[in-house]
């Protein structure tokens, strides 16, 4: 688990680290859409080349990166395997009961494998180079237009950042409760499924009461510190659109255009 990279943040100061979170979020989203337009080897090749450049620019070594996402590859292979076995069309190469492998399903399976891989790679780069807080801020910036229809964007962003801030706190508390229950003889690791679910109840109840207490105290502390509502606040952090963002967008747009031009 220690070198598992998906969803983790690695501090750094690379090109990608310095980009603004909102453009990283949007670029990842855009990249995923472009992936679904690619449908032959050349167009996938363009995207693969692009993602390799992106990984290099994030300051993470390719081997370290690949090792970090390896656990997910098994998941992809499993999904792709099912896809190959159950899809039809083309000449049948092998058949056994309801399962069949055709030349078309093999090609499709290969493409799905590449798609999955590319999506996982771009999202891993996003979380590797962006703190959760910055992602929350990015979401806030992107959703800002929704303010016009009175969608509580700022409240949502504040909730998100407080939730993220409390994740380690609650993890610690869970560990404490876990140990406290273990010392009373509760066995969390073995027994039937129903047994294990039942064992989780004395874990969850104190965890929830603790969380509710935190929430209540935190709201008092926030009020005492002059919090009224999340709309009328200034911002300490700002992520400005930079030259790096514009340049990255140009490269991504060109790659997108290439994919559209090269696809069948």
């Amino acid at each position, binding site marked *: 688990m220690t070198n598992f990279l998906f969803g983790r943040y690695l501090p750094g100061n690379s090109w990608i680290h310095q980009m603004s979170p909102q453009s990283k979020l949007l670029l990842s989203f855009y990249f995923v859409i472009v992936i679904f337009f690619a449908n032959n080897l050349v167009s996938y090749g363009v995207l693969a080349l692009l993602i390799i450049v992106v990984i290099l620019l994030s300051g993470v070594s390719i081997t370290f990166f690949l090792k970090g996402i390896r656990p997910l590859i098994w998941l992809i292979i499993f999904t792709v395997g099912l896809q190959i076995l159950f899809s039809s069309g083309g000449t049948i190469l092998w058949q056994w009961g309801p399962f069949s492998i055709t030349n078309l399903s093999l090609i499709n399976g290969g493409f799905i494998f590449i798609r999955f891989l590319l999506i996982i790679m771009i999202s891993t780069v996003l979380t590797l180079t962006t*703190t959760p807080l910055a992602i929350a801020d990015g979401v806030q910036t992107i959703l800002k237009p929704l303010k016009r229809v009175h969608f509580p964007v700022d409240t949502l962003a504040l909730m998100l950042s407080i939730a993220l*801030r409390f994740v380690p*706190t609650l993890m*610690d508390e869970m560990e404490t409760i876990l140990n406290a229950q273990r010392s009373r003889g509760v066995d969390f690791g073995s027994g039937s499924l129903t047994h294990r679910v039942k064992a989780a109840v004395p874990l969850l109840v104190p965890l929830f009461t603790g969380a509710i207490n935190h929430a209540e105290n*935190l709201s008092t*502390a926030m009020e005492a*510190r002059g919090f009224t509502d999340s709309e009328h*606040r*200034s911002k*300490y952090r700002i992520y400005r659109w930079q030259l790096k963002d514009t340049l990255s967008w140009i490269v991504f747009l060109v790659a997108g255009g290439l994919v559209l031009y090269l696809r069948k």
Partner: protein
Amino acid sequence: MKDIIQVKNISFNYSGQPLLFDGLSLDVHEGEWLALIGQNGSGKSTLARLIDGLNVLKKGQIFVDGLLVSDQNVFDIRNKIGMVFQNPEDQFVGATVEDDVAFGLENRQIDREKMHQLVKTSLENVNMWEFRDRIPANLSGGQKQRVAIAGIVALSPKIIILDEATSMLDPQGRQDILDLVRQLKEKNHLTVISITHDIDEAASADRVIVINKGQKIDEDIPGKIFSNTEQLARIGLDAPYTAQLIAALKRRHFDLDKEYLDREGLIAWIKQLVSTK
């Protein structure tokens, strides 16, 4: 001396519970360090919340720096008062140290440049500037309380209320926080109200108010309060060790002309006593 807080004849109860305060009055002098002591449930924390406008009074009035605590004034009042709460975890709003100090400033819509400046100076004030990137999970309780204090100092309040702010810290952390607040008090001419059951903390205050069951039992300098060991025992509070020792010595007819001494003072007196014998 001017009274910076005046509590006048207040009554309050939490809904569905009997009256916690019934006609309580007290004053806080400007620039003093006031300790509010009393047992759990005596109402001392509630009093702090009432002063900060976090709970609403049934009857009576509270004035803070000349302003009546009311719905209209509550935000001006909170600009004057900084509160440090008991649980370091539950007052850390920001994702990192810096963000947390900025929280109060953001609420007051201070512009960004000034905010960055204020965050830096306040964190330097509490010696936490080098920890600015840390997330709360990587800080000790004492460090979190320092951050909380920085968040308050950034807003330059007139009054700091420590609501059992040191009770979850180890003795060293406790002493560090108290030293820090004392230093800030002198520097920024603050008034400090410390709500505590730590008798040693109260012993170093300028004045002590004893609260029991919502009533003000006594108010005086710490020396007078702690020499009255019987009264303290009656309401379930321990006297400081030195006060207990003095009371014990008096029972054995050692004549001590002072009411109360701190540790050093008492050691000096005992040394003198031994050498004259």
